[in-house]
């Protein structure tokens, strides 16, 4: 019995000792590999990004001695990052960076200070991309972020409805509207309450409704937004035909009911499920209408309509900054290795894979021009091609209008509700924003308004 006990003790002792040594061995290996925390808000591409990062970790990462730990913060990434910085647990790289805030505090690294940073930035500026905007640079001109993917915008339309109501060409193919007037006209034709057919749907409860469904339309129509960089002033008259289209559609009762209480998810689901003729949409809606709420209708994509089709400009596309690098990344692995990780996250390889899977459009279409799609994704190519007639415009000068209504509120609360005419609203906004512009630059004497003025700006759409 005693012998048996002795034997058992020896076995246990050897197992424990071996495991301890094994542990030591592992920790030695781990000590050679430094982990960088990378936070992103892009939940839609989480799976693909994780696959690509796992592959990089085992190949290039292992050689460099760096491991990327990729975390998707589903929502409120800005708050999460702020809390993380406050408790010294900041991510080493993160998306949705407020460049002004974190460059002021010295928490993020200017790209030009990294080895090869200047050449890296040049790759973007050579393409004509303006990196002086607040999404990329601090007020002193240092670049902290570069673009990665873009969102293009347009009008998705229900081909079945267009055919049903005879809005077709001589070959019987649907003809989407090219002007604001046509949008109103077609919406009226396709609205038939008794069959629950509706011309168009507006998600007015959605926080981005105003920018996506109104503000961005002005670029293709007038070549600029409310801020005119040629004169350095605000001029909301570019919104007049757009506001008038909305009021006309409201008066015609040709939009889907519940406009005021619809958010975008509900509107997309209704478009997918019911008989709705048109909806303003972005390239990010492709995944939604193909997978999340697969549309029951045959749908197509058209450019944003304009006021005058013979006088069209480049339409709007979204091109924000992508990852920013925290000082902690440089402190942990050194500038060279940190920049290798940064370059990998912005690489063509990732962009091509995301495009192939229908998840992201690249900032430069030539990167994916020859990429073959895994499968045909309805609407994806059409949205990608809109990049050719799109611009990400210029940065608007800031205004200080504390305690006064912004343009989105004036539209929703006054114009749409019928308490103010379109002209009254535009006059009010012009006065308010130009006064706010003056106040902002008085209160921020270090800022130079000339940074926001470009007398050469022109975005006439050629070949259209």
């Amino acid at each position: 019995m005693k012998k048996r006990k002795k034997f058992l003790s020896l076995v246990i002792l050897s197992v424990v000792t071996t495991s301890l040594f094994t542990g030591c061995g592992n920790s030695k290996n781990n000590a050679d590999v430094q982990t960088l925390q990378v936070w992103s808000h892009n939940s839609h591409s989480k799976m693909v990004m994780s696959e690509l990062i796992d592959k990089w970790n085992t190949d290039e990462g292992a050689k460099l001695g760096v491991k990327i730990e990729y975390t998707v913060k589903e929502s409120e990434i800005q708050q999460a990052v702020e809390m993380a910085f406050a408790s010294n647990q900041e991510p080493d790289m993160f998306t949705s960076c407020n460049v002004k805030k974190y460059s002021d505090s010295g928490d993020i690294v200017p790209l030009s200070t990294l080895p090869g940073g200047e050449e890296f930035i040049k790759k973007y500026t050579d393409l004509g991309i303006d990196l002086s905007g607040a999404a990329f640079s601090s007020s002193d001109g240092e670049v902290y972020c570069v673009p990665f993917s873009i969102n293009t915008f347009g009008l998705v339309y229900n081909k079945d409805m267009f055919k049903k109501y005879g809005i077709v060409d001589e070959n019987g193919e649907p003809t989407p509207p090219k002007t604001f007037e046509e949008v109103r006209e077609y919406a009226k034709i396709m609205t038939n309450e008794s069959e629950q057919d509706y011309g168009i749907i507006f998600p007015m409860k959605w926080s981005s409704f105003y920018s996506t469904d109104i503000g961005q339309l002005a670029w293709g129509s007038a070549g600029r937004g409310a801020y005119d960089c040629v004169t350095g002033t605000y001029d909301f008259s570019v919104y007049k035909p757009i506001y008038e289209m909305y009021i006309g559609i409201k008066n015609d009762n040709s939009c889907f009911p519940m406009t005021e209480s619809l958010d975008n998810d509900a509107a997309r689901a209704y478009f997918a499920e019911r008989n709705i003729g048109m909806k303003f949409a972005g390239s990010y809606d492709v995944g939604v209408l193909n997978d999340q709420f697969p549309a029951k209708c045959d749908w197509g994509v058209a450019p944003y309509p304009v006021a005058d089709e013979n006088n069209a400009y480049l339409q709007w596309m979204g091109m924000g900054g992508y990852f920013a690098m925290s000082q902690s990344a440089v402190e942990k692995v050194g500038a060279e290795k940190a920049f290798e990780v940064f370059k990998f996250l912005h690489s063509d390889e990732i962009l091509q894979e995301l495009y192939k899977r229908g998840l992201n459009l690249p900032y430069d279409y030539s990167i994916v021009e020859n990429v073959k799609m895994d499968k045909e994704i309805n609407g994806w190519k059409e949205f990608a091609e809109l990049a050719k007639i799109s611009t990400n415009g210029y940065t608007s000068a800031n205004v200080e209008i504390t305690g006064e209504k912004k343009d989105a509120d004036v539209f929703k609360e006054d114009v749409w509700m019928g308490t103010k005419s379109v002209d009254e609203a535009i006059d009010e906004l012009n006065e308010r924003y130009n006064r706010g512009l003056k106040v902002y630059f008085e209160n921020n004497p270090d800022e130079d308004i000339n940074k926001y003025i470009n007398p050469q700006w022109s975005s006439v759409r050629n070949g259209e």
Partner: protein
Amino acid sequence: MKIAIKNPVRRRWGKREKYELQAYIMLMPQIIGFLLFSIYPMIWAITKSWYFYNGISSDTRFVGWENFIRLFSDGEYWQTLANTFLFAIMKIPIELPIALLLAVLLNQKLKGTGFFRTMFYLPHIVSTAIIALVFANIFNYFGVINALMQKIGILEQPVDWFGTKMKAMWVLVIADTWKSFGVNVLYFLAAMQNIPEDVYDACKIDGAGKFTVFFKVTLPLMAPVLQVILMLSIIGTLQTNELVLVLTNGAPGGSTYTVMSYIFQKYAPGLADVGVNVGYGCAMALVTGLILATITLSYQRYSQKLNDIY
């Protein structure tokens, strides 16, 4: 043999101190939580009321009383405050009589009262966001209310319940009443069950009818509790926030925002637009807090009579 001499005075103080220490230790988590998550943020927000503050340190500057002065000419803010009072005026006269009526019914010695008491209380423990989503679906253009009303012939066409301010306000009132009436039923029941039986026996001997007993005995004896219930209802209604944010988010055209939902939506960092003057939102919250405190104190003062009935 040793005789232990105990100092009775010392022993009593020691025990008391021990109890006190125990009490403080038990209270500590609550006190720390209150200081950290209520008092500290309040002080932070109050100090920011005198600043232009958008979260960026280099933009932050002291603006004195500017935020407060601007607030007095901000029509949107005062409109949301007026909405809040309108909401309270619409809701409280419906919610409290329903709760009182149901409490009277549940106070009868009938079978199944326990079941209904639980059922009435259930909505109170359901998340406000879920209630808002449920009511948004019920009152949807293609929802059950419109379908039902069309089926029984009240409506020819469905109604867009969120298409006008008053319709949307009524949906909010119905949803909020459904959420909170149950807890008031419990308060009223507790108040009724505190009334001594012998008072009712004396009424019976005097030949008083049911209505006379209710209005001349039950209601006056419940008056002190009624004062508290009414106060809680006023405060709760004036603070309505999540329900509005999820159910209407101010629709149509921002006309159904209550003051709390408006401040939260427009000035809370993370929810509001980037670069918004959070300091102005803090000034707004401070002024709103003072207004609500004044209303509560005035109510307490002028409703004192309810305490003095018996």
